[in-house]
């Protein structure tokens, strides 16, 4: 349990690294959380006295990048960093070797290999393990079996449950959370979630109201209340920042992640994949051709860009429907061009000085504009392709309930031309969800076509999808999707992409179910949709947490309330965009901060449910 006083954190925040200013722009200053995480890291590093080398589980470098830069590690005597791999550790004249790893068995085997290859006679290096985010019984046992457990001076955990991603976004980056919860029925991720929420409350005050929908939501709420009881002795004296917590199970809304996101950020993620706030793009569009030079050497390495609200232009366009991005970029282009033209008007020394002082800012704006123009061009090439259009048409037919009970010709054709399996699975699952299960004949047909075309071993994957409820045979009960669609207004005929007046703009017509639930909870309340809530899986509930007297907020007239929406099992960028839209709607009176186990899209999500051949060790 992290218990930190705020004053202390604020003085930390003023320290020299100012890399994460964008985290403090939002309604809730998430920099506090980041600073707390940095402090923990420093403390751990100082515990291993002397010079050190870190051996990284490569997966962790991404999430850690959101917390700290190399400079912080260097200040604490980290002299070398390596990637974890089999064999002998590279030479490094340091006192300590620290493994930063996720608690995974295959990584333990690599560590064991490192240790046993170490030259015991010449080396006097101390070994440490830092598990992120938790120590694991299984891993320590594995180290013991391999006979290396005793070589460690120090085994510790670095509780990195919720990582601040942006001014209004937290993610646990817990990739397997959905699979564990709904396939393997392993609730460890929920425990971590509850822990993370306790840390958050320690920093931002007790959240007085908790709402939830779904089995996992219920469990997390129970754990939180229990943990609070266990700490009953120490009252949290921080004025609550959040008014409400809403816990939502991903399986309450299986449909939304399956649909292709149509916001700018959503499409970047669908097409290129955003990982830990970075995207890798094909370099051709970014090559700078200077005049007079031929295109002598085109870059071959992918172009890597960081995407967050620290970039003004990106913050402006990320949540727009892609069809509104062209206009926004061109508007920006005019402003920037005009600003550069100003130099002709600068006559006096003072004016010139003024112009020059603004140059760096203008340069940054120009380079940002150039990047996003290139990205938009790349995406446009795809969204205007026939394949994209056809796929979208079928998705929209399913979501509006057209012919969901028959074998779909488009899916059939896609299988016949061996389109990527994940694309097929996304569509078939979507059809199943929109039809509340597929007819036996339809399901058998799809299954046979898939197995024949992609290989019989995918039987295992199909089984997983069935267990997770994404693919299911129709049971006797009536298809209730149309009722849900109508009651929650999941389809809006006249979605306005340019000047949206409803969240449905993020999917050009479809309003994400999860966000409708959130919206209705704020107004007029869930009581108005009891019937539909019962059709969706899992219980819905409300809990209250007592605040010490004196901490009850006196709300100013017109002051917005703040809700933390926690998506258990993942959230898409389009859903985030929809929530940001709701935060901005005037007179909504509600602002949202978003937390999740993992940022997902349909492809990464389905992939996490697929069954791969065991152990890729060779």
């Amino acid at each position, binding site marked *: 349990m992290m218990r930190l006083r705020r004053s202390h954190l604020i003085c930390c925040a003023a320290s020299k690294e100012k890399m994460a200013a964008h985290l403090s722009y939002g309604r809730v200053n998430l920099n506090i959380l980041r600073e707390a995480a940095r402090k923990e890291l420093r403390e751990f590093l100082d515990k291993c*006295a002397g010079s050190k080398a870190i051996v990284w589980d490569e997966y962790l470098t991404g999430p850690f990048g959101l917390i700290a830069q190399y400079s912080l590690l260097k200040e604490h005597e980290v*002299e070398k960093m390596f990637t974890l791999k089999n064999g002998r550790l590279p030479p490094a004249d340091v006192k300590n070797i620290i493994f930063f790893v996720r608690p995974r068995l295959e990584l333990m085997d690599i560590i064991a290999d490192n240790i046993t290859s170490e030259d015991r006679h010449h080396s006097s290096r*101390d070994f440490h393990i830092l598990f992120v985010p938790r120590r694991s019984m299984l891993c320590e046992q594995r180290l013991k079996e391999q006979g290396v457990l005793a070589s460690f001076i120090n085994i510790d955990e670095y509780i990195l449950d919720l990582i601040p991603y942006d001014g209004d976004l937290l993610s646990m980056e817990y990739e397997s959370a959905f699979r564990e919860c709904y396939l393997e029925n392993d609730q460890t991720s929920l425990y971590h979630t509850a822990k993370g929420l306790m840390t958050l409350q320690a920093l931002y005050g007790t959240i007085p109201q908790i709402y939830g929908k779904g089995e996992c939501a219920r469990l997390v709420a129970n754990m939180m209340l229990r943990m609070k009881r266990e700490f009953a002795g120490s009252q949290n004296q921080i004025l609550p920042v959040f008014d409400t917590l809403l816990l939502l199970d991903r399986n309450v809304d299986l449909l939304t992640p399956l649909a292709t996101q149509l916001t700018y950020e959503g499409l970047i993620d669908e097409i290129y994949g955003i990982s830990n706030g970075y995207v890798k793009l094909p370099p051709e569009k970014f090559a700078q051709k200077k005049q007079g030079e031929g295109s002598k050497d085109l870059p071959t390495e992918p172009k890597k860009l960081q995407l967050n609200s620290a970039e003004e232009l990106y913050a402006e366009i990320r949540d727009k429907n892609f069809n509104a991005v062209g*206009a926004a970029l061109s508007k920006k282009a005019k402003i920037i061009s005009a600003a550069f033209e100003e130099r002709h008007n600068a006559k006096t020394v003072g004016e010139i000085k003024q112009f020059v002082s603004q140059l760096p800012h203008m340069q940054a704006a120009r*380079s940002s504009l150039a990047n996003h123009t290139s990205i938009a061009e790349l995406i446009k090439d795809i969204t205007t392709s026939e394949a994209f259009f056809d796929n979208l048409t079928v998705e929209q037919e399913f979501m509006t309930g057209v012919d969901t009970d028959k074998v779909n010709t488009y899916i059939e054709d896609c299988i016949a031309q061996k389109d990527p399996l994940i694309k097929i699975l996304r569509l078939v699952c979507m059809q199943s969800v929109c039809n509340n299960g597929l007819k036996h004949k339809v399901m058998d047909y799809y299954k046979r076509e898939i197995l024949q075309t992609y290989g019989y071993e995918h039987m295992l994957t199909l*089984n997983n999808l069935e267990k997770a409820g994404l693919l299911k045979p129709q049971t006797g009960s009536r298809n209730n999707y149309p009722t849900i669609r109508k009651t929650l207004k999941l389809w809006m005929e006249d979605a306005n992409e340019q000047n949206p007046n409803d969240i449905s703009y993020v999917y050009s017509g479809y309003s994400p179910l999860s966000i409708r639930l959130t919206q209705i909870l704020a107004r007029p309340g869930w009581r108005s949709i009891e019937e539909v809530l019962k059709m969706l899986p899992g219980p819905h509930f409300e809990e209250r947490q007592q605040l010490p007297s004196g901490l009850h907020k006196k709300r100013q007239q017109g002051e917005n309330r703040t809700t933390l929406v926690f998506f258990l099992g993942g959230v898409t960028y389009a859903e985030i965009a929809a929530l940001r839209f709701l935060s901005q709607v005037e007179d909504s009176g509600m602002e949202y901060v978003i937390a999740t186990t993992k940022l997902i899209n349909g492809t990464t999500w389905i992939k996490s449910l697929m069954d791969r051949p*065991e152990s890729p060790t060779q």
Partner: protein
Amino acid sequence: MQAVLPANSFLPFCVDNLNKESLTLYVQMIKSKVDEEDYWHSSKFKAFTFDDEDDELSRLKESRQAVNNIRRLVEEDDDEDDVERISWSGEPVGSISWSVKETAASSQRADREPAFPKISTDTPSISRSQSGYSLSSLFKGKPKVGNFQTFSDALTDSSVRLYAPELRKPKSEYKDYVSDWSPEETVQRLQQGKAVSLERFRTLQDKLLLLDHAIAAHDGNVITAVLIYLKRTLCKEVLFRELESRQTALRHFIHYLSETQNQRLLLELHRALGRAEDAALLQYKEHLSITDENKRRDFLKNCLSLPFSAEDLAHVQDHYTLLERQIIIEVTDRQAERGGKVEIFQKFPRKALILNMPLITTLYYCCFYHYAEPEGTFSSPLNIRQTFKISEKQYFVTALAARAKLKAWLDVDALFASRNWLGFTRKKSPLSFQRVVDILQKNSAPTHVLQDYVALVDDGELRLTLAQKHKCHDIVISTYRDMKDRQLLLGYRGKVVRGSAEERKIDDLLSNPQIRWKN
């Protein structure tokens, strides 16, 4: 994924598509198709781009123009225009992932420098005792209990502690090792990573109480820790029975067994709990780790006796039959190829083994190398179609692609021959002629072949766009003539080769006084 073909596979058609599981790659494939932008823009896209489609796209061009203009303005500063410094690898300088590579590289450099063996100035860590304490660590300040105590120590070290904890511990904490913690306290200590011995829970009742407390805490780690202890100290039958009424613990136990690849116990567990189908699937999954094809086949054969659902059993049966067949085909074809007498293998040498390929890939292979074989052979496409009940459409698409790849246009033609014995030779197809054209074009069919099939596309507008796209001039010209659209015909004249037959045809039409042009 298992279905991935080697990059140099023999099946260009399949390779184009199969390898790409991710949307990213799938999209790259599309991109190459988008060269014909004019074509796409003129067609039917409405759903996503809405009314002012061209407007939106042209605005992107405006911004591109502005970007280029400004670049020229500020050329001299261009070298440093990136706000963030990016290294050659594209990672921002100073980020952790960049630094990992950077510092690792520098250490390698250091490695190459001649260096004298260094004598360590540190106190050599003499022997690290079983418990994980080194001498030096004892004097290194105040170590935290949790750090030194590992979970597994806590579990297995029943002999209390051999070392002397009082050396470094205040009396109050000494209690950690000897006290009788209640189940609740034990669970809490486990959660905090503190030392605790589970050995004191001796009776079944005590053990189950401990388990229930662990379950209530919802910490997977703790549940697993307790389960490992129970697994060690209880007999299977009792453990399985108790787990049946504790679903959460059961799931964690299953997860633990599969993580540690304890297949045998896992199967026993499934059977004991009457989860026959789960057990069967689990066993089937093991085939993936068998590399020898004959062993794999035998393994699959054994799987047939497992209690699958009827539906899954049919799939496993097919899987087995397919591999069995692939092995036979592989042996025969390898011989034929080596023998050098069979022309097709000489002309199109096989680039990969057919073993473990999906069924449709196998069908394609057989349509490629064994097309005309009588239905009685294992490698006959018709036999495969029959045995595995391949749908008409799938068979058709696959055969079409394979024969087109070989440029066997007569075979292609024959596929469409309607079975009408009254003498009509109308072409019939289970899939749209648009798709047919698409497949033929992907296999680089010449225009004169494509033309026949473009002409069969029902929808007039679509036929025209396809004809334009594939340069089937005759179709375009006669369509314009039928539309009596002189302007379009004139415009098209610029797109055909000077002095060609097409140009003459257009000229003839344009000068034909019989036609009453509408414009």
